[in-house]
């Protein structure tokens, strides 16, 4: 039997005494010693007084509040499994290629922690390192938060599976019923894509057609070549071999056909140290970047393009010149013919025209033929694959769509609703097409009108092969995994054609197609990926012979020049390109090279035309010019241009150098007129950051000029007669530079001519005089070199350690602006938008100063050389000439060794490093802005607002967008409000270079450290290095004691600030 045992702790428990029972019922058997810590007061009497309660509560609330006052923490998550190729803090560089339907270049993309943040051209590539600002800023497009995240069906979000299923069945239905399927794309230079399209055609029968369409077309050249040589080709031009370059309305440095390569090639011929220097003649309507670089420039109307070409041909062959061009133009052409005549049949010259008219191009072909340029400066064999669009095929397609003859339309890489001559009608006609599919990354003008949108990857997320010419094979490789649920267009086509099974985002099948294609071309795959490109043997050296019928062309030209009316418009391309970049804030903020306007397009008109049109009294040139001058509170006149039925109301920019009677309007603006979501920065923003609205619609940036273009004889025409009417309103244009002339300040800008420079009899002092000061010390008068006098001791950096320096060659710099955009992205420079730029608060650390010659320059020169006799007029010096010469000057912090900014800072926030850098300690800066005032170069930039948070910048500054923020360079801090910033000579790159050398246990050698601008400059105009290293390139170029070029000077050297930046004076071949 069981025994129940009891256990007890003491007798009182065992006996269950009343004391024990009572004590056991309490939680604490003994009373807590409360009396002790409340100071002996009676517990029952004790209560928390109200005041104490309030005190304690106040303290707790205050403490809790204080504890919560902490800077917001943005968490970064470490890798669980670190990818092998990524080391945090170390950049990876990938070779890739860029092609957007017009520009092509081989690029080297910098990625940090798997995010592409910067890129530059590949010097060994086809374009020889050439990139345009469009390519430079294309990184930002990747992070556009308006890109589509997944496919759309009838405007609603859908999934790839359902979209694929529906499209497939609809395509099959159309194909089986014999319906017409059309693919409308930009020019495709990818052989694998062509292959995929070929397979797609096979899958859906004979009624599939592929039409290539270039919004800015060069079809006229192909057609002219067909007529001249019997072959439809776009030749490869070699500007680097041309001793005389003639361009008729072709902006080949910045925009024409292959500006990446031509800009670089051209620049090579502009270095006076080479054996020869090219002579460049430009005939144009709007003062373009190319025209700004020309040695001789003449103004023509667009309708005169053909006449000018034929007159040149005539003059070359000794014929009679067409007097209808006017005295000046005829004289210039005669002069040009005299220069060209010795080059006949030599193949050392190049004549190009920007016209899309095949008759004009015929004449140009003939001129080139006479000059023997085919086979030397013009390579017809290794021809270009770009701009293969066929205008007449596009016209037919548009007609077919309008007539309802097309059953399915696939739009790839192109935006016809925006860019077709009559886009609005096309948009309406799209409704008649049963199945419309767009591959656009955005719900853009065309995509919103399509049944399905199957968003393509960004080029930085895709595999592709690109062949800009027959002989160059470039590979595009993804540098980031796709950010959104997108799928490469080629992959989509393969899925629908039944050649690929996968429907989800990542492409592998197309990758196989690429590899197979590479193998077929005989290329080693891994090395091709590694290098980013490969050469393909395309040796077919057949010679061509001109056999065109000129008479027909001549009569067409004559007819075109008749009855053109008072005004002629010409649509041209500028930095923004054909329209793909309307929402790219970096590109919008890049000032136009010539006009310096940001965030707008406008009507350019000759100032003299403006005076007439807007009724400005012209007796006094200064007051007339003031009448059209633009500034913060001096808005532009507004005019309406009417071409046919279409009209466009735009502000007017008085552009010196523009041909009288012409109106220039640039492409690429006016995107998203119907509120398509193509990016935050595509619309105009008001003073407090809200979008400007008109009739409830957001106002796009600029106006769309494509509506003025038209089809004529199977060619797209970009110029023609127009009507101009004046509006009674004004419009504020934002310009980064509102003063246009150098005011005769020869110590800022120096230039000379090639003849003077190469004349053995001239010395440095003849073309690059050093600045002397008059001294009256010792009683008498003497002159002293300005650099020899200083109040300060020589700065110690001048002989010890590193002394970082930069040299900029003004002769080969063509002002393209890549340095500005690459600096912008490297250094996280804020985007401030139009209103701030209008208030002269642009933030770019590096700017491109552009100066026109003024109408008083000659008097001023005479005044100086004649020992100051005679007179000149400062007032008139502010007025640019009608056809000015143009100078570009990249301006950045000059890193003065005797920096005026450093001495005036009360808190020593800007100081000199022992390596010659003028440094900014942002954290120390209290923002008195004294340094900015005392900077003679005006390169310091103040953070007027908190650009990262203030509402004014919410839709334009990348730092205010979750997605776009990824583009920031983690090596560079984002500056806070109220501090001064400026060019740092890319101090983060200097540090990296030094650390790399240290790791390898060697001294820093020339080339270890390159600033972003120097790195990206396509033309190699910027040299950066250690001036104390006597073997460095920078020392070789700039040390006047030893160098052979003698072109070095420092801007404003007489101010005595001893900069570490040198300029190489400009040499013109006039």
């Amino acid at each position: 039997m069981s025994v129940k045992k009891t256990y007890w702790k003491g007798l009182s428990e065992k006996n269950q005494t009343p004391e024990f029972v009572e004590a056991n019922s309490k939680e604490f058997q003994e009373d807590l010693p409360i009396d002790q810590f409340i100071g002996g007061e009676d517990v029952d009497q004790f209560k928390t007084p109200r005041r104490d309660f309030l005190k304690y509560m106040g303290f707790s609330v205050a403490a809790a509040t204080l504890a919560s006052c902490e800077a917001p923490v943005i968490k970064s998550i470490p890798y669980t499994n670190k990818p092998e190729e990524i080391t945090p803090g170390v950049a990876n560089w990938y070779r890739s290629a860029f092609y957007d339907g017009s520009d092509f270049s081989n690029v080297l993309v910098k990625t940090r922690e798997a995010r592409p943040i910067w890129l530059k051209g590949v010097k060994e590539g086809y374009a020889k390192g050439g990139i345009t600002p469009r390519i430079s800023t294309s990184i930002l497009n990747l992070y556009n938060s308006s890109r589509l995240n997944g496919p759309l069906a009838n405007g609603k979000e859908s999934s790839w599976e359902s979209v694929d299923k529906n499209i497939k069945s609809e395509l099959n239905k159309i194909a089986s019923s014999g319906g017409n399927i059309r693919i409308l794309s930009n020019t495709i230079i990818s052989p694998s894509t062509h292959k995929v399209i070929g397979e797609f055609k096979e899958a859906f029968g004979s009624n599939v057609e592929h039409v290539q369409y270039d919004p800015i077309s060069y079809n006229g050249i192909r057609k002219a070549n067909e007529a001249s040589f019997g072959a439809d080709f776009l030749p490869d031009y070699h500007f680097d071999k041309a001793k005389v370059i003639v361009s008729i309305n072709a902006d080949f440095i910045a925009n024409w056909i292959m500006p990446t390569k031509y800009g670089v090639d051209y620049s090579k011929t502009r270095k006076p140290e080479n054996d020869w220097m090219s002579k460049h003649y430009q005939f144009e309507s709007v003062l373009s970047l190319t025209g700004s670089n020309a040695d001789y420039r003449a103004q023509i109307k667009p309708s005169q393009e053909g006449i000018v070409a034929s007159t040149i041909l005539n003059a070359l062959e000794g014929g009679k010149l067409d007097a209808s061009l006017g005295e000046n133009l005829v004289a210039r052409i005669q002069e040009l013919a005299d220069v060209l005549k010795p080059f006949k049949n030599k193949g050392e010259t190049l004549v190009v025209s920007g016209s899309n008219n095949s008759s004009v191009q015929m004449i140009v072909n003939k001129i080139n033929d006479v000059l023997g340029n085919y086979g030397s400066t013009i390579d017809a064999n290794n021809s270009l694959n770009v701009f293969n669009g066929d205008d007449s095929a596009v016209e037919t397609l548009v007609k077919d769509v309008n007539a309802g003859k097309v059953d399915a339309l696939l739009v790839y890489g192109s935006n016809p609703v925006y860019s077709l001559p009559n886009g609005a009608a096309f948009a309406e006609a799209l409704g008649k097409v049963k199945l419309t599919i767009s591959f656009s990354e955005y719900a853009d003008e065309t995509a919103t009108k399509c049944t399905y949108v199957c968003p393509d990857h960004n080029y930085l997320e895709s595999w592709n092969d690109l062949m800009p010419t027959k002989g160059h094979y470039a590979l595009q490789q993804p540098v980031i995994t796709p950010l959104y649920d997108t799928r490469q267009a080629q992959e989509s086509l393969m899925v629908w054609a039944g050649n690929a099974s996968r429907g989800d985002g990542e492409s592998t099948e197309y990758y196989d197609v690429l590899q197979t294609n590479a193998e077929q071309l005989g290329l080693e795959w891994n090395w091709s990926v590694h290098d980013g490109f490969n050469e393909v043997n395309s040796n077919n050296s057949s010679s061509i012979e001109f056999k065109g019928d000129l008479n027909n062309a001549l009569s067409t030209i004559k007819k075109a020049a008749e009855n053109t009316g008072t005004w002629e418009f010409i649509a041209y391309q500028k930095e923004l390109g054909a329209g793909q970049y309307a929402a790219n804030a970096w590109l919008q903020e890049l000032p136009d090279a010539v006009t310096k306007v940001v965030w707008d397009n406008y009507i350019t008109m000759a100032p003299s035309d403006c005076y007439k049109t807007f009724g400005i009294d012209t007796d006094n040139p200064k007051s007339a010019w003031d009448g059209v001058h633009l500034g913060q509170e001096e808005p532009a006149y507004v005019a309406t241009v009417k071409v046919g039925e279409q009209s466009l109301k735009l502000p007017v920019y008085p552009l010196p150098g523009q041909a009288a009677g012409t109106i220039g309007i640039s492409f690429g603006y006016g995107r998203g007129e119907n509120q398509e979501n193509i990016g935050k920065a595509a619309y105009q923003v008001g003073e407090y950051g809200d979008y400007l609205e008109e009739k409830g619609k957001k106002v796009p940036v600029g106006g769309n000029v494509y509506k003025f273009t038209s089809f004529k004889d199977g060619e797209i025409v970009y110029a023609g007669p127009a009507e101009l009417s004046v509006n009674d309103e004004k419009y504020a244009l934002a310009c980064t530079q509102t003063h246009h002339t150098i005011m005769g300040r020869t110590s800022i800008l120096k230039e000379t001519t090639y003849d003077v420079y190469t004349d053995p009899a001239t010395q440095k002092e003849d073309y690059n005089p050093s600045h002397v000061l008059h001294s009256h010390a010792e009683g008498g008068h003497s002159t002293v070199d300005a650099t020899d006098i200083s109040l300060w001791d020589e700065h110690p950096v001048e002989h010890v350690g590193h002394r970082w320096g930069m040299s900029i060659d003004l002769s080969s710099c063509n002002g393209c602006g890549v340095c500005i955009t690459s600096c912008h992205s490297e250094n996280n420079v804020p985007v401030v938008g139009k209103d701030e730029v209008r208030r002269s608060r642009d933030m770019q650390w590096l700017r491109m100063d552009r100066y026109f010659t003024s109408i008083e320059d000659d008097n001023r020169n005479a005044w100086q050389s004649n020992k100051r006799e005679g007179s000149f007029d400062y007032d008139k010096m502010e007025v640019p000439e009608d056809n000015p010469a143009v100078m570009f000057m990249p301006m950045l912090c000059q890193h003065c060794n005797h920096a005026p900014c450093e001495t005036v800072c009360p808190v020593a926030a800007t100081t000199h490093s022992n390596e010659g850098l003028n440094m900014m300690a942002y954290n120390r800066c209290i923002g008195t802005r004294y340094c900015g005032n005392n900077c003679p170069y005006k390169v310091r930039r103040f953070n007027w607002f908190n650009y990262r948070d203030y509402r004014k910048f919410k839709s334009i500054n990348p730092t205010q967008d979750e997605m776009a923020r990824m583009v920031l360079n983690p090596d560079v801090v984002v500056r806070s409000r109220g501090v001064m910033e400026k060019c740092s000579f890319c101090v983060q790159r200097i540090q990296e270079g030094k650390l790399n050398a240290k790791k390898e246990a060697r001294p820093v050698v020339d080339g270890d450290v390159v600033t972003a601008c120097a790195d990206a400059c396509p033309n190699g105009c910027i040299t950066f290095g250690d001036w104390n290293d006597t073997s460095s390139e920078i020392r070789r170029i700039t040390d006047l004691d030893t160098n052979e070029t003698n072109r070095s000077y420092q801007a404003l050297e007489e101010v005595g600030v001893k900069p570490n930046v040198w300029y190489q004076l400009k040499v013109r071949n006039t």
Partner: protein
Amino acid sequence: MHKEADIRKPLILGDKTYRDITDDIIRPIESKAPKAWYILILLSGILALWGIGCIVYLLGTGVGVWGLNKTVEWAWDITNFVWWVGIGHAGTLISAVLLLFRQKWRFAINRAAEAMTIFAVMMAGLFPLIHMGRLWVGYWVFPLPNQFGSMWVNFNSPLLWDVFAISTYFSVSLVFWYIGLLPDFGTIRDRVTKPLAKKVYGILSFGWTGDAKAWNRFELVSLVLAGLATPLVFSVHSIVSFDFATSIVPGWHTTIFPPYFVSGAVFSGFAMVQTLMLVLRKAYKLEAYLHVKHVEYMNIVIIVTGSIVGVAYITELFVSWYSGVEYESYAFLNRATGPYWWAYWSMMTCNVISPQLFWFKKLRTSLVFSFFMSLIINIGMWFERFVIIVTSIHRDYVPSSWTYFHPTWVDIGVFMGTLGIFFTLYLLFSRYFPVLPIAELKSILKSSSESYKEGFGHGKGYWDKQLEH
């Protein structure tokens, strides 16, 4: 007690007794303020609040709410700063320099002028603070010890000199002014009957006893402070001018700036004293103490300093041409004929041409004309600072950056706000503080009053009056 020649014009008109002086000056404090005072303080108070609102908006949003830009990084802010500092010159000049020179007529104006100085320097000091991009770290301009060791202020920077100059000037002026007020506070304390007022004035008077020892020390301290303040009058504006003179900006880099700025400051300071005193005289019926003679004396100072300023302008022009320095020549040509010609010629008209009218005795002794001129001169001196600052930097070396400055409503609002704060403080001062130095006026009664000068020490009826009390 100084004896004064009888031929000098009397400084106190009428038959004033010591008692009269006390009564006349304390009356506004004892009696109810007139309606006009309430209206004025309401207006200036609204203006002050508006200005404070603008400052709060400025500090909350960023300096970008002003119209400054990448080229013109100082404009109204520093213009206002220099303008207020200039105005703040007259008080100390009158009390210190004129004290050392034993100018008895100063007693009619020194108290109010000193108060004006204090308030003007406060307004001036505001601008360097709010013009900073990051006010919250503004204390870094002081050489404070810190854990970074080498993190120190930059003694090369004139802005740092400014910090010391202005703060020293402000504190010395404040002490000087307040010490002068002590005997008068004592007088008021003894007269007022309301307990609160008695207590407040008792505290303000620092227990002034009025015995011989106190007077002795009072005189001594005044003299010592006058000796200290005199060099400050010249140093402050010299140092303010160094902000410009030591820079390399054409138009700023000028060695004549220190004397030119100091005389300009005295010029504008006297004008402001005129503006305020002429109103005060009328409102508080102080015609006996502050009359045409005083105004004439001040106008003479204005002619002298105005002419110095005029000579400086012309010297600048001459030197810019004579130097042969391209940038310098252009800077001055641009001032006179460039986009800011209107500012330059406003300045020239107001500061150089108009004061010369004071050569006419009739104009110099006209109170209405003097009041009008004092306004003109203050406008002109504001333009002078604006012209120096903005026209020099808006077109300096590199033409690509040349631009123009357009003020925003915040620029204007802050400036108007400082006027509001200034007048509010001044109105409060005139209501609660003795606007003329009672004790000091009494000290000249026996040597410079009209009745004394009439031959018998006191005029007709003097003794009758004395007996009455």
